[in-house]
């Protein structure tokens, strides 16, 4: 049984994650977003071992799902539709998640992990197996019921297809068969023994076998004719004195009849064990398949629950969101785009930027220190990654093409010391990027090559960016390397595909943190910042 809530035709991506997902996560600060996804906005109860209201598994799932870009507009639409359903049916999604959570937890307690190792073919193991089988079949029937109750209001292809699969693959007839199967073995595991004041209700078996004798006249080639669990009730006053299985006997017609006695007790137990163990041997795939269903349901609903949680926080802080529109290569526009993580951290108090970068293939951003350049670059990177996993983005409007290969090359604060080891590391990362570009790449450079002199850094950056530009690769770069920016500016005066942006800097020296089209200047206003902080 397949869940297929992440992709229309498979449980998990057939393509890999972003080439350097760990660096992207680090450069864009996405861990804060994953953490936000794990903050329960529905029931506000945390999972075991975590801070109240936080569920690290949800964070983990969101991280994994975000790490693998969707490849087509259809795939993105598929998830956007499911997310739209999730927003209107939050309690339903939460139930799906908690049912799978419960099933997997209980299974864990029954020793799921140890199951494959060690003791096989023992009575305690078999009893556990049957309990697991019951747990899983009950669980999947509950999921089916949940879907039946919630069908109203589900409009997405993904949820409706899962509803249909549950109906088809788990028809009433099949559900009944599964119950019969579990029930036939119930006596062995002592499932749901009932007790009341006046009598013991005991589960006893009825087994019929057909067998041959060609194995050295020993019982062999066995076929099971019947296997049933019978419920027998004993009156208390009689039951207590006698053995639990009682001594009710009736004389059956037959050729040889053996009444139970001590000697034959072992034979009876052997027959019980072997018959149940044989029938259970058929259930391996069933257990695996339902088990995988729950693993997947748990993982996939965790992602959607994470999206619900992020959206709740956005609504709380009045951060606008929209579902992005996938466009072709020539279109790249956004209205009031905010940097997602900073918005959450500042409770919505961040600058929004709008831009129409249609047909721009190289974007060079220069200007004031602390002017919002890096934030702007990150807002685009994060929105792009969120779009490519089907999520909403923090903007009133966002239109972009898909870039399956996204690369970030950020010089980090701790890297800034001039140090040939650092430069070496930067160059190595750049080499890795160029060796693994893939299809339609998007490269975000943030103050790359600031680890060497301005002159050297400019010349390195110029060579790399010029070559990438000529190869038609989309590059957004924030840079302090003014000789590099100047040289590019002079060379691309007539080039429509290159645009220069700058952090806005009012005449009175105030910074607005807005990014506007602007030619590069010879100063990055570092002196002003120096003055501001250290005084004149």
């Amino acid at each position, binding site marked *: 049984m397949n869940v297929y809530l992440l992709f229309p035709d498979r449980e998990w991506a057939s393509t890999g994650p972003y080439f350097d997902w760990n660096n992207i996560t680090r450069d864009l600060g996405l861990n804060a977003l994953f953490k936000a996804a794990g903050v329960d906005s529905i029931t506000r109860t945390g999972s075991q071992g975590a801070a109240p209201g936080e569920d690290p598994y949800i964070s983990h799932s969101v991280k994994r799902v975000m790490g693998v870009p969707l490849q087509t507009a259809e795939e993105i639409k598929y998830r956007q539709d499911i997310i739209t359903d999730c927003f209107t049916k939050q309690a339903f999604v939460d139930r799906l998640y908690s049912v799978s959570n419960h099933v997997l937890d209980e299974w864990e307690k029954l020793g799921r992990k140890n199951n494959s190792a060690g003791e096989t073919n023992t009575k305690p193991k078999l009893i556990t197996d049957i309990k697991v089988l019951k747990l899983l079949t009950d669980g999947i029937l509950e999921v089916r019921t949940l879907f039946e109750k919630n069908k109203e209001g589900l409009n997405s292809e993904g949820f409706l297809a899962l509803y249909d699969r549950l109906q088809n693959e788990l028809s009433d007839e*099949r559900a009944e*068969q599964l119950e*019969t*199967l579990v029930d036939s073995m119930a006596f062995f595991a002592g499932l749901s023994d009932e007790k009341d004041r006046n009598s013991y209700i005991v589960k006893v*078996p*009825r*087994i*019929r*076998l*057909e*067998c*041959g*004798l*060609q*194995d*050295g*006249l*020993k*019982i062999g*080639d*066995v*076929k*099971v*004719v*019947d296997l049933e669990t*019978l419920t*027998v009730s004993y009156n208390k006053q009689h039951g207590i004195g006698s053995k639990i299985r*009682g*001594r*009710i*006997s009736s004389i*059956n017609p*037959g*050729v*040889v*009849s053996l*009444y*139970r006695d001590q000697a*034959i007790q*072992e*034979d*009876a137990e*052997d*027959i019980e064990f*072997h018959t149940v163990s*044989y*029938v259970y*041997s*058929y259930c391996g*795939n*069933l257990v695996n398949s339902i088990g995988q269903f729950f693993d997947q349901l748990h993982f996939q609903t965790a992602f959607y629950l994470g999206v619900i949680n992020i959206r709740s926080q956005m609504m709380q802080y009045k951060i606008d969101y929209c579902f992005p529109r996938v466009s072709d290569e020539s279109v790249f526009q956004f209205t009031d785009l905010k940097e997602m993580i900073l918005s959450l951290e500042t409770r919505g108090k961040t600058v929004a930027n709008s831009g129409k970068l249609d047909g721009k293939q190289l974007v060079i951003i220069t200007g004031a220190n602390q002017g919002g350049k890096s934030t702007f670059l990150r807002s685009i990177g994060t929105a792009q990654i969120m779009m490519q996993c089907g999520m909403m983005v923090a903007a009133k409007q966002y239109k972009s093409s898909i870039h399956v290969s996204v690369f970030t090359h950020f010089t980090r604060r701790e890297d800034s010391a001039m140090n040939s080891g650092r*430069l070496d590391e930067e*160059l*190595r990362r*750049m080499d890795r990027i160029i*060796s693994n570009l893939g299809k339609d790449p998007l490269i975000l450079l943030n103050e790359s090559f600031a680890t060497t002199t301005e002159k050297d850094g400019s010349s390195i950056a110029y060579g*790399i960016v010029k*070559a*990438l530009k000529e*190869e038609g690769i989309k590059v957004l770069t924030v840079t302090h390397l003014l000789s590099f920016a100047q040289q590019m500016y002079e060379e691309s005066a007539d080039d429509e595909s290159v645009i220069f942006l700058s952090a806005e800097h009012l005449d009175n020296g105030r910074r607005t943190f807005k990014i506007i089209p602007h030619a590069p200047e010879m100063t990055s206003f570092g002196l002003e910042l120096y003055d501001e902080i250290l005084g004149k």
Partner: protein
Amino acid sequence: MFSLLSKTGEASGIQDWDTSCSFLQDLNIDQILDHITEGWDPECRKMFEVFPASAEDEEYRRAIYQDVRNEEVYSALTEFYYKILARNTYSEKKEKAYELVQKRVWYLREIFTYVSSITALNDALLRSSLGSAGLKALSDFLSDTISKEDFRTLNDDVTGLWKELSEFRVILTYEKDQFTLKCGTTEAQFENFLSDLFPGQKNDYGVPFSDEEYFSNLEDSIVKLFMKKNKSFFKRLEEFCKKYPTCFNEDIARIEKEMIYYLAFARFQKMMHTHGYDMCPPKASSGVLSASGLYDLALALTNMETGKKVVPNELYLSDDESFFVLTGPNQGGKTTYGRSLGQLVYLAKMGFDVPAASAEVPYFTNLWTHFSVEESLESGRGKLMDELERLKPIMHESQERAFVVINELFTTAANYDAIEMGKRVLQYLIDKKCKGIYVTHLGELTGACSGIISLRAMVDDENKQTFIIERNEPAELKGINSQVLKYRLTYEQIKERFS
């Protein structure tokens, strides 16, 4: 005497491989043999540790192995082998059984399996197109055995009794603390329920009671019921056992053992194939030793666990060239290359396929190796003496035209001495018309005498090991360029990377 290992039927093997010539360890062939013989009768390993007696026998085995590679033949022999295993189990059970009547039933089963396995193998071989003299002879031998009157009577007797026994069925009901027994058959409703619920799945119930031979109380009752109802069957079974106290054929017993040699390697080759490592039959050659896509089989086995890939290499040594001297950086694949050459010669001599995409191997009289023992506790003079001791058998006893693999000789000796001694060893072996490879860090040895070909383990532009071995003179390391150049990140280099 008919044999699958030797054309003449004489005992195979030209000599006992003496312990001083430890090429099984040196070439990691013992590791390969662990995989090949895993799960087979441990006795079979001996067959892999003796070379065929002659070039003719090598050819004889090679032809048989190519037949065994044929899927039809392979599955017929495998099936036959599994029946032998089953037969052995029945025989053991017969020995262990307490009741005479039980012994007789096991014996019946043993004979039935024996007879039907021979018939099935004969039918399968007749259906297959065989190319080898060895398997053709086997097919003739089986046909002959089967057509004899005594085999046919045995076949009729055993089949009749067996059919009767297998048709006897008992229905056993366990309910409310009692068992009820009845003769007859049922619809097996629950089985139908299971196959309805789990289509395509068929599991084995196994045996409910201990598979020890004594009867449980329940079984005892069943047997009594059965014997009461089928007196005539037991009478005829008793007569059968008296008529055929034994009926196994000695030649067939030997063939059963010998076929493991081929089956074990064929199964191993299939396993390698599923992991993406292919082998090929080596072509006979009058003098050229060559291979393309040659790899170290033992390394492939190790890497299979870690998922690492093995770098395949080329090999070409013409008729008038004698010895490779292989130099290059440490950890550059030198020893691996030497081993893969040795394995190539070993497997070709045994008649098997070789780990390469294609290969041509001439006849070598023998295979010798000498590997320095890195972890030897001995050092200095002690270690050198130890090395020379181990070299003695190669220098004194080696026949002409053997294949020799030497790895890092005289590492503890002074450079000048090591070069001088190395040259003498090479000169001696080349005079003996031996071929082989000498892995060393001493570039000077490439000029030791005529007939030597210099090989080098190559590095790439960044000075990293490529594990590729090429004909090349020993070289010094190249200088390192500036950082940007190193990462190929200049404008021109990037443009070049895209073109």
